[in-house]
C-alpha cells in the first residue's frame, strides 16, 4: 500500500511517499503500526485531531476500513483558496 504525507506531516516524517507492507484493518491500525516504527512517526502522529486522512483520494475518518485500499494519505487540515 502506498502511504503519502503532505505539508508538515511530510516534513516531520522526512519523505513524501513510501510503500508499506501491512495487514492493517483500519486507518487507525495503520497509524499504530507507523507510530511503533520510529520517533519521527510518533512525532507526526502525536495529535490525531490535527490530522486528516484520505483513502484512495477520498477524505475519510480514522476508523475507516483499509480493505482493498491502494493509497492512504495523511495531512494537516487543508488551507486552500
Amino acid at each position, binding site marked *: 500500500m502506498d502511504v*503519502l504525507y*503532505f*505539508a*508538515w506531516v511530510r516534513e516531520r516524517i522526512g519523505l513524501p511517499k513510501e510503500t508499506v507492507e501491512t495487514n492493517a484493518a483500519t486507518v487507525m491500525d495503520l497509524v499504530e503500526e507507523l507510530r511503533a516504527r520510529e520517533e519521527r512517526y510518533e512525532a507526526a502522529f502525536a495529535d490525531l485531531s490535527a490530522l486528516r486522512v*484520505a483513502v484512495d*483520494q*477520498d*477524505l475519510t475518518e480514522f476508523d475507516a476500513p483499509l480493505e482493498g485500499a491502494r493509497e492512504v*494519505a495523511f*495531512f*494537516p*487540515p*487543508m*488551507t*486552500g*483558496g
Partner: protein
Amino acid sequence: MIVRVQDAAFDLGAEANAFAAGHSDMGALVTFTGIVRDLARGDLDRMVIEHYPGMTERALEKIAREAQERWGLGDVLVIHRYGDMAPGEQIMMVATLAPHRKDAFEAAEFLMDYLKSRAPFWKKEFTADGADWVESKAEDEDALTRW
C-alpha cells in the same frame, strides 16, 4: 464544468471572458479571486502552495458538481495554482454563470467555502525569520454548516 490545477499564473480577465463567451442566456457572471496577502508585519517574502495531485482535481470536481446540482448554473470554472508565489499574485479563481445574480453569487460563495477546507492544498509562508505552515481556522470549518 472546468477545473484546472496549475503552476502557471492565469489572466483573470481573459479567463472570465472566455468562460462567459457564448452564454447569451446567462445574465450573471460572478468571479472571486484569491490573492497572496502580505502578513500584518509586511515581511512576507513568498508563499508556497503544496497539493495532492489527483485528489485535488477529484475534490474540486466534486465541489463544482455539487454547486451545479444545488443552483441553476450555466457553468462553473475553478482555477487553483500551486507552487511558488509572491505577495500580490493571484492564487486561484472561481467563476459562476447563471441566469440571475443570486444563484451566481451563492454558488461562488459555496465553492469558496468548500474549496478552503475540502480541497487538498496547504500554504506555507516564508519570511526572513523562517517558514510557517498556514493553520486552518475554526471559522473556515464553521462556514460549511450554513450550506
